[in-house]
Structures are given as structure tokens and as C-alpha cells.
């Protein structure tokens, strides 16, 4: 009995010890792995830090080690093109490794924020509109002014793609990789059937065009806007811009505020009135809940004729109705007080506490010569070079599909030079990401459509939400 009791006791102690030690071993081994990673690299310091002088003698040495690269460019063509560039870089730079993880945009900002807060963010990652402004505040992004100088300087990048979209306060935190203009799409066959021979140049003409082709009994609608997800802002923002409404401004003390005087408020009300009429008379009732994908599929499938979008819509047309790809055309969004549009934007940011030297060197490699041209041409409808010299590259222009030839360079450059991203007319608004994700502009219009709110009430709602955001 005594021996049995002793064995039971011993077994209990061994089991308890094993259960306690195993997790500790797991923790210590992951810690030593990360120590090994950092040991194989140059010290993870940003340019111009205290150890910069110590590394002065080492600047000619190639960065080594590995980097983790999170890319939200999920389409196979551009994922492959990005991988190819990474593989080529690795081949040319022995001792390096670039591990690309592809993930969707949905939830990506949250993942990056969580990773930065946890201290294990990827060394390099793609960023969307508003990301640099949100992430820079966390203190997790590397300031990239010196890198920008090395790859051509601020003026090398188109319009506000770097100095506003990639900036936060006085620093640059994201290198623009690509931008895309918004244009209005239409179906030539629908206009022919409605005897419309002239493309609209005013808002009224655009409404008349959409109304003329709308036939709900046959499931044909002139217009749609994705109010069911955050992409609805693109259309509304384009019209606000066209009517001279900036919405947000910053004072000399760097305090952001909602900037609406009587005139601009009236202009904002006019936009909402117009959007309400356009949606009510020309869009399916369900547009209130449609996502961007839904609307693209409906345009491609021939249920909706027109929407405001980037050229990426052509991929949906290719998938859903490839025979009609020549029927889907585009024109510049009709201006009013000025040309209005928006722009899609994607950049590259570096994690401050990662392998910054290797990450920066890889970015330098990407922006060397025509390295990125094949990448842009792998998925040309969705990516236009943010760097001016690549936009003008013959290799790039010659490789573009026929449908895009009329757009590049003149129309695209014009639109991109006059457009801004959401809330960024007067500078890199830190709340741009939140402005977008909370669907503030879209919800104002939805309230008009579902709660019979007036345009004034819709603008009041937008102002109230923006003030809360400030």
C-alpha cells in the first residue's frame, strides 16, 4: 500500500511538472527563434538613429536575413508577379529571404494594428487608403523620408499619392505603390438602344442617361452604388469633390475640423439631393445593401449599366461576361464646379522594429528602373504606377490592354492630378481610415432612402459623425 501511495504521489508530481514545463519550453523556444532571426540580420534600426553612425561603415554591406511581407494583393496574377520579384531579389542578394503572406483587405488593418501592438508585425506590408495615418500614430511605422530621396524624391510621385496619402504629420510613412482613377462606366449597346449619342458632361446629362435606360420590369437599371459596404464613399466623394466640398480641414495647430460654411454646406446638400434622385430613379432598390462585388457583377451581368469605379471592374466583366468586354466603356465623371473624382491607392510601409534595412533595400530594388512594369502589367486594370516615370515608360504603355490605351496617360494623369482620396484634400487626415470604414458618407444617403431623411438631415448626420470622429 505504501509503495502504491508513493507511486501515485510521484506520478502526480511528474504530471504536474510536465504540464507546467511544456508551455514554458514552447515560450522559450519561440523567443530563441526570434533571437536567431534578428541575429542573422543587420540591427533593426531605422535610418538616422543613434546606431546610424556605427553602421556608416557597413552601408556598403548588403542587408541580409529574412523579412516577412504581408500583401493584400490577393489576385493570382499579381501575387505571382510579386513573388517573382521577391525571388529575383533573393537570387541576386544571397543571404536574404522574403516570405510573402497574401491575405484579403477585409480586416487587414485590424490585423496589422494587432500585430504592431503585440510587437510581432511583418517587416513589410501593403497599406490602403488611411492606413499610414492610422498606423503611424501607433509608433510602429518607420519614417521613410530618406528612402524616398533614394528612390527619386517627393516629386517623383504623382499628385498627392506620397505627400498626402503616404504622410502623417511631418513624416512620410508609406511609399505609394500604385494608384487608380475613378471613372464612370456605361454600356455602349444600351446607349445605342436609347438613341443616346453624346456622353454626359454634366450631372443632369448623367442622370438623363441613366434614367433613359432604366427599365425595372426587365431588370435593367441605369445606375447603382454599393451602399452595403464601405465602397459607397467613392461615388459620393467624387460628386462632393466635383461640387467643391472638401469637408475636412486642418488649422495652424494641426487640429482637424469639419469645414463647412453656408456655401459648401449648400453644395453638400445639393450632392445628397442629386444622389438620392439618381439612386431612387435609376438604381435597384437593393442597392442599399449591395457590396462592391455585387454591383460589379451586376454591371458585368448586364443588370446595371453605370457605376463609378476603378478600371478593376473589367476583371469582373472578363469573368462574368467576357463577350461584352468591348461593350463596357468609360468616361470622366461629370464635373460641376470643378472636376471631381477619387483615387484608389496602395502603398508599402515598413515596421519600425523589424528588419528595416532589408525591407528598405527591397523597396529600393522594386523602384529601380522598370522592375515594377511587369508587376503593373500582370493586373493592369487595377494598378496604375504612382511613380511618374513608370507611368510614362514605353514598356508599360505598350503592354497595356487595348481598353486602357485611351485612358493612359492623358485621361488617367488628368484625373489623378485633380482627385484626392477620402478626406485628404487639405492634408493627410488621420481619421481617413475610420471615415471610410464607418461608411459615414454612404450612411447619410441610406438614411434618406430608408428613413425618409432630407438631404439637410443627411448632411447633418455626416457632420455629426465626422465631429465624433475628430
Amino acid at each position: 500500500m505504501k509503495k502504491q501511495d508513493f507511486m501515485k504521489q510521484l506520478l502526480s508530481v511528474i504530471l504536474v511538472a510536465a504540464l507546467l514545463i511544456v508551455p514554458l519550453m514552447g515560450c522559450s523556444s519561440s523567443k530563441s527563434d526570434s533571437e536567431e532571426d534578428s541575429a542573422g540580420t543587420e540591427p533593426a534600426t531605422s535610418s538616422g538613429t543613434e546606431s546610424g553612425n556605427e553602421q556608416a561603415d557597413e552601408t556598403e554591406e548588403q542587408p541580409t536575413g529574412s523579412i516577412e511581407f504581408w500583401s493584400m494583393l490577393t489576385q493570382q496574377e499579381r501575387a505571382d508577379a510579386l513573388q517573382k520579384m521577391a525571388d529575383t531579389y533573393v537570387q541576386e542578394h544571397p543571404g536574404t529571404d522574403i516570405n510573402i503572406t497574401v491575405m484579403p483587405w477585409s480586416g487587414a488593418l485590424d490585423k496589422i494594428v494587432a500585430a504592431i501592438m503585440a510587437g510581432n508585425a511583418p517587416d513589410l506590408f501593403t497599406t490602403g487608403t488611411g492606413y499610414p495615418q492610422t498606423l503611424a500614430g501607433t509608433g510602429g511605422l518607420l519614417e521613410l523620408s530618406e528612402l524616398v530621396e533614394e528612390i527619386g524624391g517627393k516629386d517623383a510621385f504623382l499628385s498627392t499619392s506620397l505627400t498626402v496619402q503616404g504622410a502623417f504629420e511631418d513624416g512620410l510613412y508609406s511609399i505609394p505603390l500604385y494608384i487608380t482613377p475613378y471613372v464612370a462606366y456605361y454600356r455602349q449597346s444600351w446607349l445605342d438602344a436609347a438613341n443616346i449619342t453624346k456622353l454626359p458632361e454634366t450631372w443632369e446629362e448623367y442622370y438623363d442617361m441613366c434614367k433613359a435606360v432604366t427599365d425595372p420590369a426587365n431588370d435593367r437599371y441605369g445606375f447603382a452604388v454599393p451602399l452595403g459596404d464601405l465602397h459607397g464613399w467613392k461615388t459620393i466623394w467624387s460628386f462632393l469633390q466635383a461640387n467643391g466640398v472638401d469637408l475636412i480641414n486642418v488649422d495652424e495647430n494641426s487640429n482637424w475640423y469639419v469645414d463647412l460654411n453656408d456655401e459648401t454646406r449648400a453644395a453638400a446638400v445639393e450632392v445628397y439631393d442629386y444622389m438620392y434622385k439618381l439612386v431612387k430613379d435609376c438604381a435597384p432598390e437593393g442597392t442599399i445593401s449591395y457590396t462592391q462585388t455585387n454591383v460589379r457583377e451586376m454591371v458585368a451581368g448586364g443588370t446595371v449599366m453605370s457605376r463609378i469605379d476603378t478600371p478593376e471592374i473589367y476583371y469582373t466583366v472578363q469573368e462574368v461576361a467576357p463577350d461584352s468586354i468591348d461593350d463596357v466603356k468609360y468616361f470622366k465623371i461629370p464635373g460641376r464646379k470643378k472636376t471631381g473624382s477619387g483615387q484608389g491607392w496602395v502603398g508599402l510601409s515598413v515596421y519600425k522594429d523589424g528588419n528595416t534595412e532589408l525591407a528598405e533595400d527591397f523597396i529600393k530594388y522594386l523602384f529601380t528602373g522598370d522592375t515594377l512594369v511587369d508587376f503593373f502589367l500582370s493586373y493592369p486594370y487595377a494598378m496604375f504606377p504612382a511613380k511618374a516615370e513608370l507611368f510614362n515608360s514605353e514598356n508599360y504603355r505598350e503592354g497595356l490592354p487595348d481598353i486602357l490605351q485611351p485612358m493612359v496617360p492623358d485621361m488617367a494623369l488628368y484625373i489623378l492630378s485633380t482627385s484626392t482620396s477620402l478626406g485628404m484634400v487639405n492634408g493627410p487626415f488621420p481619421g481617413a481610415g475610420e471615415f471610410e470604414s464607418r461608411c459615414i458618407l454612404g450612411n447619410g444617403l441610406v438614411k434618406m432612402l430608408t428613413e425618409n431623411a432630407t438631404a439637410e438631415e443627411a448632411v447633418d448626420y455626416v457632420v455629426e459623425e465626422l465631429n465624433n470622429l475628430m
Partner: protein
Amino acid sequence: MQDKRLDHNTKRMSIEGTLLYMPAILIIIGIVFYPMFYAFIMSLTSYSVRKPVMDFVGFANYIEIFKDKSFWQAVWRSLLFTVGSLIPQIILGLAIASLLNHPRLRCKMLFRGLAIIPWLIPTVSVAIIFRWMFHDIYGIMNYILMGLKLIDQPKAWISNGTSAMIILILANIWRGTPMMTTMFLAGMQGIPSELYEAGHMDGANAWERFYKITLPLLMPVVMISGILRFIWIFNYYDLPWVMTGGGPAESTQTTPIYAYRRAFSSYKMGEGSAITIILFLILIMFSIIYFSMKQRQGKNESW
């Protein structure tokens, strides 16, 4: 002497037992209590991702949340969604369980297996299926309803706040009823068949047997299942998020979505944490009811 040896053995077994369950306690402390404690601390600060500084602000976040009408609207919607889903789940669960428990039902295993299928489908898939079924142009429901002349033109079900909430509840009922069916069926298996025979001999019809025998004896299971499901449904995030995103214009924004938006869209972690603590306290009340009922049930059984 013998008493002393017994005491010594008891004490040793008690120490051994404590050592054996201590790792589980430590894990629970690590993954349950520590995050809750940290969330509570964060709820007392102005922590924001954009400026990661934890300044103590006391209960200011809670006051801010309580002053926000969107919070109360979200709580109301959560209650509507929860109660609106739970009552039909209980009624349908009882009905289906009664059918599956019927002595004359053939192929019982087949039907019991089929009844559980909605529960096996991932919530995201359910949300997408229902979203497409009720699509205003491509949805099959409009096609069926127009064919039956119940509506004269297609309706945009998810584009209207009221109908969007109804569709959400329908989807939740469809998905959650199998769970209730299973729990009630298990409870019914424990009711002695002699009671039904006695009832039959006394001239009770099917409804009377259900109402006077099944329901009273199943009531403890119904109550406990109901409380648990209430807590689960109130915390549901995935179904409303995927199906409507909290829209149109926040008309289906339940409390978990509100908390998510506050924490991850606005990046106000302090306020987000405060909302989760408030949610936790609301649900703690229901947990207390659950444990009280469980205790009462235990006492009744011991009698």
C-alpha cells in the same frame, strides 16, 4: 489512531488532487481571468491605437458609452434579435423533438441526422446563403413569393431595416433550432414511457400528453437551454456581421458589432473594453439565473 491515519490520508489525497487540477486552474486564470482583468483595466484608460498611451480616466469611458444613444439602440436590437430568435427556436425545437421522439417514427436515426444539418453549416455560409436567397433581383424568395402572388414586385429585403432584422432572425432560427431540438430530445429520452401509457389509458390525447406530461417534466431542460442560448445569441457577432454588416445604416447593428466598431474602426480600445465589460455584466445576470435554476433543479432531483 485510525482517525488520525484517515485524516492524514484525506489530507494527502486532497494535496494530490489539488496538484493535478492546478494546471487547469492556471490555464483558466491565464486565458480567461487575466484577459478579463486586463480589459477592465483598459476600460478605465483612454487607450487608443493611434496614441498608445494608457492615461487613467476612471469611469469616463462608461459614461461616454451610456450617453451614446447608439449603444442603447444596439442593446435594444440585440434583445430583439435574441428574443426574436430564441422563442421560435424553443417552440420549433420542442415540436421537432416531439416528432423525432415519436414511438411510431421510422428511420429515426436518418431524421435525427437530417434535423441537425443546419447546425453543421458554418455561420458565414448560412449568412451568405440567406443574403442571396433574399436578394432583390437574383433571390429565390422573391421568385417564389411572386409566383404565389404574395407580393406583386420584388422586394429588397435586406435594404430595409425592419425586413433585414426579420431575415436575420429567420436565419438564426434556421441555424439554431437543431441545437435546441437535440437538447430537448435528450431530455425527452429521460421521461419514463409508463407515464405516457398511463396518460393514454386515462384517455389523454396527444396534445394533452404533451402539455401535461412532456412539458412539465421537460421544463428544467427548456429553461436551462433557453438561458444558455440567450447568452450565446446575445453575443453573436458573425451572423449579423456577414449578412448585413450592421446595416442598412446601422439598423441591424447589435451590441457585439457596436463593440467591434468602437474598438477596431474607431480604435478606441478603452471604450471598446468598457462595452465588453458592460456586456459581460449583463450576461452575468443571466448566468446567475442559470446557476440558480441549476441548483434548484439539483435540489428537486435530490428530493
